[in-house]
């Protein structure tokens, strides 16, 4: 994946997080991936004009804030903690839809697979982001990981 595509995909995540969850991304380098206690990770496959998978990993410590912002409740509200994993999954679902439009435009039709989610330890994070299509971004001073895997290759440039 070239730098320009990485920036575009990173900006898709930033836009989604800002609009739905009121969290701000920073274009600068991501903070130390091991600076957090572990991540909530979610992934979804897609098939259609191209096939692949989009994954997102959010620090466990940020997931409840993500949920409370989306729901509009206090961060210490039990509802926020209970919704943390579901909130990450839903953000991934939204990001996936927008990444596909960003890469392929609005003509092709994609079918998404079922969402999967689980935990990713801080030790696993560097390998996760170093693999093809992986990136680490900075959101509100914390690392957020995004990976777009397309075995057939990512189309260059913005679709017309």
């Amino acid at each position: 994946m070239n730098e320009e595509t990485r920036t575009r995909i990173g900006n898709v995540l930033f836009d989604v997080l800002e609009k739905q969850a009121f969290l701000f991304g920073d274009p600068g380098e991501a903070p130390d991936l091991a600076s957090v206690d572990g991540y909530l990770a979610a992934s979804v496959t897609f098939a259609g004009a191209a096939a692949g998978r989009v994954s997102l990993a959010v620090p466990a410590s940020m997931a409840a804030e993500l949920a409370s912002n989306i729901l509009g409740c206090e961060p210490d509200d039990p509802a926020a903690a209970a919704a943390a994993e579901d909130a990450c999954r839903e953000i991934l679902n939204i990001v996936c839809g927008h990444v596909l439009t960003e890469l392929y435009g609005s003509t092709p039709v994609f079918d998404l697979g079922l969402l999967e989610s689980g935990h990713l330890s801080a030790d696993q994070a560097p390998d996760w982001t170093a693999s093809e299509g992986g990136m680490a971004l900075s959101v509100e001073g914390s690392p957020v990981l995004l990976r777009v895997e397309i075995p057939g290759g990512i189309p260059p440039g913005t679709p017309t």
Partner: protein
Amino acid sequence: MNHTVGIAEMKVSADPGDVLATYALGSCVGVSLYDPVGRVGGLIHCMLPLSRIDPAKAEKNPLMYVDTGMSVLLQAMFDQGAQRKSLVAKVAGASRIMDAGGVFNIGERNYTVVRKVLWKNEILIAGEDVGGSVPRTMYLYLDSGRTLLKMAGEEKEL
């Protein structure tokens, strides 16, 4: 009576004869709140999105930041008898004008934090004119809740 709300200031009033005005909203954001039942209104002019960049400054003047400023404004409205459910919110400013640090997205972030606070407080935005690059002046008429915008020689009701 006319009251001017300066940068990082607010004014709340229940006097139907009052008109609150704030001038030259650039990347700053102006928010008016009005309770048409109790006829209580308030206007704030915030500069920056989040107080956590300088908690000491925010303690000195919480109105400078959208997050702390909006909390103070809402509390002042409730203290004057406004009901959360009746509040009509209007938003202006948040232009894409470069700030002193050469950052372009201050306006956008100011607007996002306004939305965050209002969502948490269960208030929808009833009218807005944000973004772009024009400076705006915002007026709130306490007799009716009418919110008027003036920008580049043009007038507009929000």
